């Protein structure tokens, strides 16, 4: 298929394809970060993670409509406010869910899966009742659309750059919060030994609630960012959930670095295969490869070897 193209053409295509892979990578990281916190740190299998993302997307949509109607002059900047609101909305819902549901189930991880699946059904129907069954289109400010010409032949989409920048920022923020902040230390203490952490005066319930809220809030921001590239509908969240879990599990659930590395591996593999094969087959092969590798290395790619 390359026969007819000059070397510089090919170079440009590979550059753009690499960039496409990077965008996919950012998307995966955004999807998986929240889950890595919830699943990796807390051991909760949140099947409603996709629905928390979609909540963020709907918040973005509402914000954009509100700005168009009442503050059209500020419309170019609405996206930042929308993302903050998405974080707050999803995070708050997450904390509510933790309080009502999850905290009763910490000792039964498989049951969190079933309960959150029930939650996801309820949320889907709630979205459908409130926002209608149809998809909603989120209008973006003009500056976020279009692409930037890098060289004569290479151009990169602006929203792709935006998503990548956002991913880097959020990842750094999460890394800071979990690794360096006092609160992050508490989170890790609770993860390692709940009883001990409680005994030294950490309010474990509060830590759990905020951790879950943080994970869901990040899901909300991811959902907000996805309005730039994907669709917003009541059931759109379900599309993401398997991919997201695979990214987290493949990375070795407990490690953030692993999640990022795994998102990178999977996205590059998939976008390369997509280039040579049809989209459907690329997807099948990627999933198969992940499953096969997980069978050989169940602890995931980057899990630490620990004494059991």
């Amino acid at each position, binding site marked *: 298929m390359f026969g007819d193209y000059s070397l510089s053409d090919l170079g440009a295509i590979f550059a753009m394809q690499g960039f496409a892979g990077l965008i996919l990578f950012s998307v995966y990281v955004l999807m998986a970060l929240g889950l890595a916190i919830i699943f990796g740190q807390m051991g909760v299998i949140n099947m409603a993670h996709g629905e928390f993302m979609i909540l963020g997307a709907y918040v973005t949509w509402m914000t954009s409509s509100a700005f168009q109607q009442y503050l059209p002059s500020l419309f170019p900047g609405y996206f930042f406010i929308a993302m903050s609101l998405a974080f707050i909305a999803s995070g708050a819902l997450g904390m509510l869910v933790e309080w009502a549901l999850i905290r009763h189930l910490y000792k039964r991880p498989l049951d969190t899966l079933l309960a959150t699946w029930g939650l996801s059904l309820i949320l889907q129907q709630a979205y459908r009742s409130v926002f209608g069954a149809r998809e909603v289109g989120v209008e973006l400010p003009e500056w976020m659309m279009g692409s930037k010409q890098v060289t004569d032949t290479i151009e990169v989409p602006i929203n792709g750059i935006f998503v990548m920048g956002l991913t880097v920022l959020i990842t750094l923020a999460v890394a800071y919060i979990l690794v360096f902040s006092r609160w992050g230390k508490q989170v890790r203490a609770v993860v390692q030994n709940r009883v001990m952490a409680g005994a030294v005066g950490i309010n474990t319930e509060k830590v759990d609630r905020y951790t879950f809220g943080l994970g869901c809030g990040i899901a909300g921001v991811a959902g907000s960012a996805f309005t730039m590239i994907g669709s917003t509908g009541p059931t759109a969240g379900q599309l993401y959930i398997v991919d997201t879990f695979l990214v987290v599990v493949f990375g070795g659930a407990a490690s953030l670095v692993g999640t990022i590395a795994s998102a990178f591996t999977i996205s590059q593999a998939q976008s390369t295969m997509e280039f040579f094969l049809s989209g459907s087959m690329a997807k099948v092969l990627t999933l198969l490869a992940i499953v096969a590798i997980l069978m050989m290395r169940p602890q995931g790619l980057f899990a*630490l*070897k*620990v*004494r*059991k």
Partner: protein
Amino acid sequence: MLIGHQPKDFLLAVSGLTVSFDGFKAVNDLSFYVEDNEIRVIIGPNGAGKTTVLDLICGKTKTTSGSIQFRGQELTRLRENEIVQAGVGRKFQTPSVFEDLTVFENLEISFPRGRTVFGSLTFQRDAAVKQRVEEVAEMIFLKDRLDTYADQLSHGQKQWLEIGMLLIQDPDLLMLDEPVAGMSVSERAKTAELLNRIIKGRSVLVIEHDMKFVEDIAHKVTVLHQGQILSEGTMEHVKNDPKVIEVYLGH
């Protein structure tokens, strides 16, 4: 027996055993030998690698290098259940019994027959099984609690049940990890009596902190420190070893 240099009268020969977790050598080039009908106690401070040694022998943890020979069979290459079938039994530190099953069923599962999938499908609870279960139950002071679900038992009773489960396997080498930890004084005495009874006719490897108890039963004591042998010999010898006194007994 391909390996000719192994002295025949050793039941268990551990040589050059090493395991590392991410570079940390929990057990480092460890060698020791256990004879038939010997009772060996391993002592040492916390983190010395005592439990890890048992884990390595029973296959729970994979060795990094070294060899473990049991009756001339290389255990490091076998799976856990094959090691059990070869004649090694292991009791864990915390009692691990099946709480959703009755005492009878707990013991029955350990009865060394019908251990394959097909075998367990066709397993019959015949007179031999019942007799043996009752015999062991009597030994572990649970004869009248055969129909009790294990979650109803006290901590000490659970420990006994687990010992009973090992007993019914009839292993040649019995490994016990702190068998009297967490027991009341009266239970402790009963346990010592029980152990004294069951260690006859087999080799036993015990980890224990209770020095009185150790003195009572040990033929030979191995002192571990930082994954290596600090001292080995009779209790008397070990007690007077200045190295041991410094790191362990002296505290």
